[in-house]
């Protein structure tokens, strides 16, 4: 399941909804991404997330389908916010559930790595020194590449 919204969310409520009545779930892993108050040495007062409505939904659905094809997931949620956020605000929530923990842990890491290089979101940070678009980081590319290697090795 994927959701893109401006409003905040309650991680406890999201997990409760995901596993309600699901006796087949034995492991739930959640990743919550939040806004930091600095980027390197720069102070961040506000972060604005822009996205590409339509493509964002499609891309997140593709990423979820890819994770489900790789691991036996009982349930999966990708929830991403857009709009203007402030330090400590929630940005993204990924929840994976499976019978045993290995699949849920691996799938959650995979979903975040892929989301970071594929989902069409762009962050703009504002602070005392003005505002600027955040540059993509090379570690995200490397982090996602390791899953491609894992897949190739398995084939």
């Amino acid at each position: 399941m994927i959701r893109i919204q401006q409003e905040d969310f309650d991680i406890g409520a999201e997990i409760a909804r995901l596993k309600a009545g699901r006796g087949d779930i034995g492991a739930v892993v959640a990743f919550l991404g939040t806004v930091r108050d600095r980027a390197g040495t720069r102070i961040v007062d506000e972060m604005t997330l822009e996205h590409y409505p339509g493509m964002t939904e499609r891309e997140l659905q593709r990423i979820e389908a890819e994770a489900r094809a790789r691991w036996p997931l009982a349930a999966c949620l990708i929830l991403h916010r857009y709009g203007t956020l402030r330090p400590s605000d929630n940005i993204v929530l990924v929840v994976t559930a499976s019978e045993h923990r290995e699949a849920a842990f691996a799938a959650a890491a995979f979903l975040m790595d892929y989301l970071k290089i594929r989902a069409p979101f762009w962050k703009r940070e504002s602070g005392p020194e003005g505002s600027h678009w955040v540059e993509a980081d090379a570690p995200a590319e490397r982090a996602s590449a390791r899953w491609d290697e894992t897949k190739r090795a398995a084939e």
Partner: protein
Amino acid sequence: MRLLYFAWVKDKAGVSAEDTDIPADVTTIAELMSWLKSRGPEFAHAFARSEFIRTAIDQTHVGHDASIGGAREIAFFPPVTGG
């Protein structure tokens, strides 16, 4: 054809979306970016470092060598920074 621009590509081009007639001899994303550059100083600025610009055709990521034949919507944007 519907063209969309996001983040700093949008800021520099000064437009977020437009419907444009593309010349018939423009057949790939790379050629389309070259043509867009010729449309004025804002577009020349936005596409000056086109190697850093990512593209999507009909909401699917594509490379600069992709054919634009049959495309309804083409988007230009910087590398994504979500998550």
